[in-house]
């Protein structure tokens, strides 16, 4: 792969901040349905970027476009660019499989494989034919996901035997074992109880030292607690369709403290949802 586009990383687009992933999308389609339009979402290094907005606003669609997960959906089409490591993720000849190896993903439902805890975490390492000590990396990843103390004596036990919160941290360990550049988290706490949610949130804040996180959440309080930058999406229901778009994006304090847009203010004040 040659680096086709250097600009995104080379020039500082936002004052002195490093943008690892710069998503400039014109339109996203599922078949004939336009799901999202005109949104520019830069994701800064070692920050948590939260995506919030009402249902159907396309926040998950945008997130899943970043690692080309949506390519698995029939009829998906992305018009625009996602600059990552000096290249366009949607550039010609780019292999989505390779893209996904550099961008980890954590899903809404905890989805460990039907394998032991160890094999779950080692999965990505083996996939990438990791040459070093797999045991060390598994331990490191489990420590990184704040799960090591709870599972160190039962690494051979099924990953699916853990509690929901533990399973989600196992999925995080699995995702970070290969040390991806960016971690995409699609409502990672929506299936968890408040205590497990709290633990995962604390974990995210720790993880941003090493990784860059993009987080979709339907929970505004969660965005306030963990996100450094927040992107607010809304859905345009004019002309009989439902197309999502980015309304505004900025530091979380600003978005929740003094939003520039009327729509944002209404949403965070709970005037519509």
């Amino acid at each position, binding site marked *: 792969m040659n680096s086709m586009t250097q600009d995104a990383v080379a020039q500082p687009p936002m004052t002195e901040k490093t943008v690892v992933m710069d998503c400039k999308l014109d339109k996203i389609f599922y078949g004939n349905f336009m799901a999202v339009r005109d949104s520019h979402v830069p994701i800064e290094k070692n920050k948590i970027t939260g995506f919030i907005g009402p249902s159907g606003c396309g926040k998950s669609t945008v997130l899943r476009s970043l690692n080309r997960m949506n390519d698995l959906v029939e009829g998906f089409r992305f018009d625009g660019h996602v600059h990552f490591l000096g290249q366009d993720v949607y550039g010609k000849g780019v292999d989505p499989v390779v893209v996904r190896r550099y961008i980890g993903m954590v*899903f809404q439902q905890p989805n460990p494989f039907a394998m032991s805890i160890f094999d779950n975490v080692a999965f990505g390492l083996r*996939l990438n034919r990791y040459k070093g000590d797999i045991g060390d990396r598994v331990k490191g990843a489990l420590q990184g996901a704040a799960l090591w103390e709870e599972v160190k004596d039962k690494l051979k036990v099924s990953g699916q035997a853990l509690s929901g919160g533990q399973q989600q941290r196992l999925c995080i360990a699995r995702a970070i074992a*290969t040390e991806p550049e960016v971690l995409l988290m699609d409502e990672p706490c929506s299936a968890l109880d408040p205590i497990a949610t709290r633990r995962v949130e604390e974990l995210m804040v720790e993880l941003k030292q090493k990784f860059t996180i993009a987080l979709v959440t339907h929970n505004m309080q969660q965005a306030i607690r963990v996100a450094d930058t927040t992107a607010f999406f809304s859905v345009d229901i004019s002309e009989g369709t439902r197309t999502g778009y980015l309304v505004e994006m900025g530091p979380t304090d600003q978005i929740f403290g003094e939003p520039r847009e009327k729509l944002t203010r209404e949403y965070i004040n709970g005037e519509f949802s």
Partner: protein
Amino acid sequence: MNARVLAPVAVPSLQHKMEGRSLFSVALSGLAWVCALLASVPLLSVLYLLITRGGARLSMEVLTELPPAGFEMGGGFGNALAGTFVMVGIAALIAIPVGIMAAIFLAELGPSSKMANIARFSAKTLTGLPSILAGVFAYAIVVLTTGTYSAPAGGVALAVLMLPIVVLTAEEAIKMVPKIMKDAAYGMGCTRSQVIWKVILPTGLPAILTGVMLAVARAAGETAPLLFTALFSNYWLYQDGKLDLMNPTASLAVLIYNFSGMPFENQIELAWAASLVLVLIVLVINVVSRYFGRQKF
């Protein structure tokens, strides 16, 4: 509690009453119980008969010796036991890989493609195929072209019977693998074939094995398809220091069929013993498939 809310309403009796609908319910439950009992009568009575009639004759000798001729005493069905294993093995070697690969296509690659619909329809029809027709098919394909009754011909006939069972159960097993697990695999950067080999097949394996075992058990007990294809033999496949599969081959099922009609007490006793052995093999396969069918993780 506020008594005012309940006061104007007459409190209904919550006691159980023996009236029309509960009597009907009791009667239906009883009927279901009797039917369940009836369903287990055939297996239990066959087992009882086999153990009493065949058990007496069962010994190391019958498992290892060749079948006796007309008025001979003693003997056994060692070659038929071996023949059954060889032919079921050949059938498994054909039907399992083809069946699982076909199931992968049906469940994952092109579930609603025209090819898939044709294959699925064929497999469903084939499950109801009279087994003797599988024998006719193998006769035409293998016996006529090779010019001899043989173990491979029997194996092909049995494979035809196993294939639809393997395809349909494996397809179901693969479809049972949750989508979120496949998403996880794609999210880790797996190619489609890696998702299938590393996640879908291992996850569905216990259920696939159950189907495979059921197919093997069915094939082991089939008689009709072997009559035209493997025929029978009074000798070992392995003879004079070499294994020659291209000869008529004995099997337990055909031995039972042949011997049970003979006027000799010795042969009839051997048929009973062979029946018991065959049922035990099927039973063991079922037990083993239950063991593997348990989800390990």
